């Protein structure tokens, strides 16, 4: 019989492995999909703060609309950091001046050579002053209405670094009427 295989001849190679090319194609498609959907994680942190006190709500809406919002009486902050900005058309919204109010006394924070308020001096001043306060947790920060939030946060950040645990916001001196 001519069709009969000779037992001494090795069989031709038969690939019994899985065909991975389609699998690879699918993997690439899935990979492409997930790469598109991927958003790198932003290092976002949080800072716990106080909402404006009831006493600071201004205008006709000063009465809190919900009685449940009343908070327990607590010690008033003894320090207030006042942050000013300038509107010269170039540096609108950046910090131009920082002062600290304590029992009616105002202390100006010196400026650096570049003309900006010295934030290190603010940090050291707050840290030193805090040691003599009876309420070492609370502090108020007041900014001009047109001060950029970034500048405000820099000052709040320094307050937290100086050891104050509960910074609160005070109404801007040039605040609009209560109704937005």
């Amino acid at each position, binding site marked *: 019989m001519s069709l009969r295989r000779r037992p001494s001849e090795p069989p031709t190679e038969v690939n019994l492995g899985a065909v991975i090319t389609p699998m690879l194609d699918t993997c690439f498609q899935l990979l492409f999909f997930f*790469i598109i959907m991927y958003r790198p994680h932003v290092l976002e942190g949080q800072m716990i703060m106080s909402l404006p006190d*009831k006493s600071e709500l201004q205008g006709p809406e000063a009465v809190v*609309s919900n009685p449940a919002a009343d908070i327990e009486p607590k010690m008033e902050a003894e320090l207030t950091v006042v942050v000013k900005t300038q509107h010269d058309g170039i540096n609108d919204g950046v910090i131009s001046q920082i002062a600290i109010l304590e029992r009616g006394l105002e202390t100006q924070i010196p400026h650096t050579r570049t003309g900006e308020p010295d934030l290190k001096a603010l940090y050291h001043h707050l840290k030193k002053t805090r040691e003599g306060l009876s309420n070492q947790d609370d502090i108020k920060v007041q900014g001009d209405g047109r001060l950029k*939030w970034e500048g405000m946060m820099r000052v709040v950040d320094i307050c937290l670094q100086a050891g104050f645990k509960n910074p609160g916001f005070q109404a801007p001196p040039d605040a609009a009427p209560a109704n937005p």
Partner: protein
Amino acid sequence: MHGPRTLTPGVSAAPNLTPLLDVVLQLLMFFIICTNFKMEEASTDIMLPAAQSARPVDKSDVDVLFVNLTGEGKVLVLGREPMSLLEAKYWLRQQYEDAERNARDGKVNTAIILRAARDADYEKVYQLLRICKEQGFKRFNVRALTISGEPT
């Protein structure tokens, strides 16, 4: 003299795809794990200010309400068009009433997560905070980008 070349039977010239597949699968696993399909309440359009004092976000606190404020003073929340502060006031009131209804003891413990753009005016931020307070919210967190370094 060499004779005519003959192909050796059984020799495959195809590239070995197995290591490539391994690498692709590993990359795939990475992206599958890192992808979050949940609708983010935190708007990616907001450029947050940076702060060294910002602490890692406590993800166990689920009773939160995200409020994004753009540099133009518009309030962004999930599923709504950008709102003015006045519109945000009514929206926040509605949210508070909903939270009050759903609270077991009637006490609302929802925390406002404020994500204000770094170029937003403080006046707008303060107005938004005041509105939150007026509606009855008590807890309040500010989001910022964490930066490391020496104290200022």
